[in-house]
């Protein structure tokens, strides 16, 4: 399988603090990867570097073999990278439907747009609230709306930053099934997550970040059998 995303010696420091320190990461096409690690490990910073919200201090980012390190964010999105933020950034004062239309209209028009809109509303189970302001949705529903907006761009790689934050166990489970479904359709997905049950539900491969560096990588079973990982992350002394 081809590598879709690669980071080489990716480093970002804020003043003297290294948020990301020489990360080499390779994501294969069609993979479903989980990024875990304690708070402050640099997970969200890594996503922001990949999407271009931050410029790296050192290192390079390659997407499908092209160097995108200095590319502006919207151009990265146009190449097929899409992201759901940690804090949902849906357009609160617009209707649910309008949120999706704005995401859809770049790639779709006319009847195809309407069809895709219905499909997405069904996917996130918000059809009955399509004419509601996004601000009136529950936190979990806003998360779904944002996932749907990210999916609307038909990305080849989807980055999900804590997609289940603030969700009930049932909602978390549904989100897991949604992520698996999207991955089965061929989308490469990278997920930052704290909920280990959720990680177990979806992940095939897990990367552990610690102090801005890759600490371990492997299947979930390999990861949890590593005593050092358990010590730094899972909280056992």
């Amino acid at each position, binding site marked *: 399988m081809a590598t879709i995303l690669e980071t080489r010696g990716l480093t970002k420091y804020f003043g003297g603090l290294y948020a990301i320190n020489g990360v080499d990461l390779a994501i294969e096409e069609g993979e479903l990867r989980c990024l875990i690690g304690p708070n402050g490990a640099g997970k969200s910073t890594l996503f922001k570097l990949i999407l271009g919200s931050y410029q790296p201090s050192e290192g390079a980012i390659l997407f499908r073999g092209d160097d995108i390190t200095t590319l502006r964010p919207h151009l990265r999105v146009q190449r097929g990278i899409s992201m759901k933020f940690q804090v949902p950034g849906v*357009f609160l004062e617009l209707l649910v439907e309008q949120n999706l239309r704005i995401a859809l209209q770049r790639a779709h028009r006319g009847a195809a747009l309407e069809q895709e809109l219905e499909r997405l509303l069904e996917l996130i189970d918000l059809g*009955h609230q399509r004419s509601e302001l996004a601000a009136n949705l529950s936190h979990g529903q806003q998360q779904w709306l944002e996932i749907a907006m990210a999916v609307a761009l038909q990305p080849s790689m989807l980055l999900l930053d804590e997609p289940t934050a603030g969700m009930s166990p049932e909602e978390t489970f549904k989100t897991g099934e949604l992520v698996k479904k999207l991955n089965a359709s061929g989308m490469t997905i990278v997920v930052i997550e704290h909920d280990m049950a959720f990680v177990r539900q979806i992940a095939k491969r897990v990367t552990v970040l610690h102090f801005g560096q890759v600490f371990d990588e492997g299947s979930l079973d390999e990861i949890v059998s590593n005593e050092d990982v358990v010590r730094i992350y899972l909280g056992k002394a």
Partner: protein
Amino acid sequence: MPRWLALVDGPQTLGRGPAFWSVFGMIVLAAALLPTFVNAFAVTNLTYFLVWVFMALGLSLIWGYAGILSFGQTAFFGLAGYTYGVISINLGDAGLWTWFALLLALVLPAILAIVVGYFIFYGGVRDVFVGIVTLSFTLVFETFMAQTAGPEWTIGSARLNGFNGMSNMPPLTLPWGDNPVIFDGPAFFWLVLALVVLVYLGLRILVNSRFGNVLVAIRENPDRAEMLGYNVRLYQLCVFVIGSVLAGMSGVLYTLWGSYITPSSMGLTAAALPIIWVAAGGRKDITATLLATVLLTWLSQQLAVKGSQYALIWMGVILLVVVLFAPEGLFVTAWKKLRGGRRMRQNATVPKVISSPSA
């Protein structure tokens, strides 16, 4: 109906359907017939109220729809006015020269807006700082024009005249055999009215189009809009230029209206007025902006004519009251109250859709 025309109604504009458009048609018709019923002085006054509408609609687009608070509208207003003055005084009213001057008076603000806007948006200036930069720019321009009183400040045969302002520019003139059509009095009123209608309808289509969708997305959350693949800076620059050209249109029509333009039409007071009109009506809707602009320019004039020195203070009071009690603007708030009441009455008879509860 063609797709683009159907966009006159949409999520980004209040009012739709036969009832709304019937009222709209009647108002336009009544306005068009007014010059046959009222005297010349009243026609001149009516024209004056309409002249400001373009600048306000431009600000509604920049600020209300795209979320960029610009104090630069009066700079482009002034630039357009002076451009028309300089060109028309030099070239006279023969042939189509006055129309050429009008065109140039719109092109020049566009070019300046591209340059200023480029540095603002591509330079990463955001939020309240855009207001500060545009206000500084406006005041610098005003100060510069105010010191052009000396005879050395002459372009061709047009003297800039400093704080006294520039005057005696010819009205718009169309050659028509031996009797050229001169756009003053009712003819000028009809021209301005036609432009108001055209610009209003054009903007309704624009804000409900895909372009308008992206504008409101940028207003709500520019970072999110960028993450949907939109070139946010380019959209901001485009909307800034469109709004500035509209300010220019007000500037050139104002100059034509009074055959006069002065630096004070760009100063701090002048720059604050469009903000008040737009905020008072409801900046996120062009219909509300249009109504508020006509109403408030009429009100200021009434107050000034009645000998009150407090017209501007009243404008300030109106702004304060609106910001405190109807932050969305008077007309938008009233409209939503009206609609909300109707929806509630409907819901009383139709069972409410139960939304799935979630944590």
